[in-house]
């Protein structure tokens, strides 16, 4: 009795990060001023201004594309794959060496818990560079012809939810295949991409192979519209993905689009319930639910729904929300005021449409952007919280009676990025996994990522794959024969 079992604060020190007052664009191997008006990037956990960041206008984007084109034609596309590989290995090693610094900076700028940036984001970033480094001199064995050729200059636009990880997914395969890149990080999370630019300098990567242009939507539009890029790689919302597909219509630009999702996480009555609860929590509360493949629709078999929900609520009550730099934090800050407003709006709509809202007792910090882990029961397929991507820690719970009903409900969405299946019955796993229209199916697990494993969607979740051998196709001329 009377023993204090609360956690003492265990903050990770931010002294390892050398934050500059302002950051320029990274073009042709050097940091330069942008011609846009510039913007501030803040810590979403405290609203503290972290740095001033340059904004690239169309002229800056043009300079970056020109630098990338020069580097492509004079250096990178001519370099033997074995030499490109060594640059990528170098980068991978530096990322490992500076892993703590990158993790802290990511957490500062993004608001995600340090345990996730430290144990998931940054290690997978390094692994991604290691994996694709090894492909650079083996492309003739990848199944795309004996001597597959790069596309040229890739324009790449990434989101704010996994800033450095999405950068790695874009840059590592592009460079391995012999392309050069102009990458635009998200407006709210530019800092790790700029630290990555320093890493490129540290690795003596030839100037122009990687160019980083910071800015908002207009910078991205200028990049997509630039006549001298050969490839657009985008991760972000389905609405923007469609706009990009329209914008490049009639051109020779290739595209890979990794867009939104509304994944079903299906729990059958014979599932290992405690494991399933962990998977559900990981599926929707990992990274504050800022995950395109988040398991945001829980489909639970009716006969076990009460039992499962009781266990889920109990587990949710133990989640620790707060300082992202604290090593014991499970749920960090929502990335921006704008995203917080979107989550609030959809949650209010969920209530007004008749679903029942529940959150554990959870004290929110007074500064910054926060939203408690939330679940909605009594959700129907017509509810907006069951159809639209919330991109926050909000779980919609629906029930089903038969496997075929589960499959039908799971597929009843324009999205098709991921799905989860929980059951101890092997043949049911394989049957359901086969019937789900989703690019990634996690069975008795969720939200697992690996550089060797292709990731990408069906339907309106986009096209193309990132990761694995299939991820190379996004950056190679694959058309080998006639039609």
């Amino acid at each position, binding site marked *: 009795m009377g023993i204090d079992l609360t956690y003492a604060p265990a903050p990770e020190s931010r002294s390892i990060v050398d934050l500059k007052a302002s950051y320029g664009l990274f073009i042709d191997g050097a940091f330069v001023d942008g011609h846009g008006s510039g913007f501030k990037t803040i810590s979403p956990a405290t609203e503290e201004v972290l740095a001033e960041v340059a904004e690239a206008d169309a002229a800056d984007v043009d300079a970056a594309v020109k630098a990338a084109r020069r580097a492509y034609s004079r250096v990178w596309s001519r370099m033997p794959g074995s030499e490109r590989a060594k640059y990528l290995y170098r980068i991978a090693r530096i990322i490992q060496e500076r892993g703590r610094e990158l993790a802290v900076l990511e957490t500062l700028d993004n608001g995600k818990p340090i345990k996730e940036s430290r144990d998931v984001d940054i290690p997978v970033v390094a692994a991604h560079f290691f994996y694709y480094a090894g492909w650079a001199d083996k492309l003739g064995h990848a199944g795309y012809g004996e001597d597959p050729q790069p596309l040229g200059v890739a324009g790449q636009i990434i989101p704010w939810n996994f800033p450095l990880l999405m950068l790695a997914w874009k840059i590592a395969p592009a460079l391995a295949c012999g392309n050069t890149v102009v990458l635009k990080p998200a407006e709210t999370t530019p800092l790790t991409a700029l630290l990555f630019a320093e890493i490129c300098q540290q690795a003596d990567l030839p100037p122009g192979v990687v160019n980083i242009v910071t800015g908002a939507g207009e910078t991205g539009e200028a990049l997509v519209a630039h006549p001298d890029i050969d490839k657009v790689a985008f991760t972000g919302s389905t609405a923007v993905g469609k706009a990009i597909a329209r914008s490049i219509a009639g051109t020779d630009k290739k595209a890979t689009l990794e867009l939104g999702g509304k994944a079903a996480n299906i729990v059958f009555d014979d599932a290992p319930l405690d494991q399933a609860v962990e998977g559900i929590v990981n599926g929707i509360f990992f990274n504050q639910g800022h995950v395109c493949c988040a398991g945001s629709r829980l489909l639970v078999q009716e006969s076990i729904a009460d039992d499962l929900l009781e266990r889920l609520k109990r587990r949710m009550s133990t989640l620790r929300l707060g300082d992202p730099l604290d090593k014991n934090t499970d749920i960090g800050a929502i990335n921006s005021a704008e995203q917080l407003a979107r989550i609030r709006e959809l949650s209010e709509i969920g209530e007004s449409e008749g679903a029942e809202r529940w959150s554990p007792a959870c004290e929110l910090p007074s500064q910054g952007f926060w939203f408690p882990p939330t679940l909605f029961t009594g959700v129907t397929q017509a509810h907006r919280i069951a159809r639209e991507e919330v991109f926050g820690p909000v779980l919609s719970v629906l029930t089903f009676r038969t496997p075929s009903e589960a499959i039908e409900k799971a597929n009843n969405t324009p999205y098709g990025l991921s799905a989860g299946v929980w059951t101890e019955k092997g043949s049911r796993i394989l049957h359901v996994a086969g019937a789900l229209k989703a690019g990634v199916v996690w069975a008795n697990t969720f939200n697992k990522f690996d550089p*060797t494993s292709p990731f990408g969607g069906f339907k309106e979740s986009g096209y193309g794959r990132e990761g694995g051998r299939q991820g190379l196709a996004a950056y190679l001329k694959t058309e080998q024969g006639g039609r």
Partner: protein
Amino acid sequence: MAARIDVRKTYKLYIGGAFPRSESGYSYIVNDAKGRFVANAALASRKDARDAVVAARKAFGSWSGRTAYNRAQVLYRVAEIMEDRRPQFVQALQQSEGLTTARANAALDAAIDRLVWYAGWADKLTQVVGNANPVAGPFFNLSTPEPTGVVAVLAPQESSLLGLVSVVAPAIVTGNTVVVVSSFDRPLPAVTFAEVLATSDVPGGVVNLLTGSAATIAPWLAAHMDVNAIDLVGVAGEQELATELEVAAADNLKRVRRAPVAEPDWTASPSLDTMTDFVEIKTVWHPMGV
């Protein structure tokens, strides 16, 4: 003695395994390569296109659910029936493309051989483009191709049989179902092909063939929210129309095979892209040992 009066024919559409007339009631005159009347063909309307999409969607589940071996058998059987109907195809090719008998036979040979080639891919593509992934953890991890769904195919305008087979076979062999708009000026080989399909083991709805104008029908297919992909080769060289169609296709992020500047050489060996452009890689994870 007076010459016998021909029985002139008005061909029909092929939708859901049946041969309806166009719901619009329109047909158009098909002339041979020298401009002489050959027959009337149905002029497909947007309603016909929508009906065809419904038929294709209805057929998708069962066709994509068949075993790969079975789809291979079904496609090979189509090649067998084409062999049976050589004279009809040769005549259609001569009329449509103005070929000599020898060249018409060569085009038919190539079309049948192409079909046989694709039939064999049914149970091999998964092995060639799918694989296990050695992830850094205790997980079984497998990537396999799955059909994209309903594919709208604008068949080439010039190569009325080899070109047609070269765009239809790679789409359906992986389990997709298709809505095809045939060559406008040269629809007869497509009509004969539809008659072959109707007497083959290809289930109704897997291939739906519309004769008519791509410029008229394609915008409805490109914008249709229940079509998952579109092959624009039939509007090769028509840059403006192709761009419009690609823009419309973005509404539900259809997979688009763009229109080339000119119709390709269909005698060249096909690339795997003809199939892989209309499949989706699915990756399944499962823990091992826990």
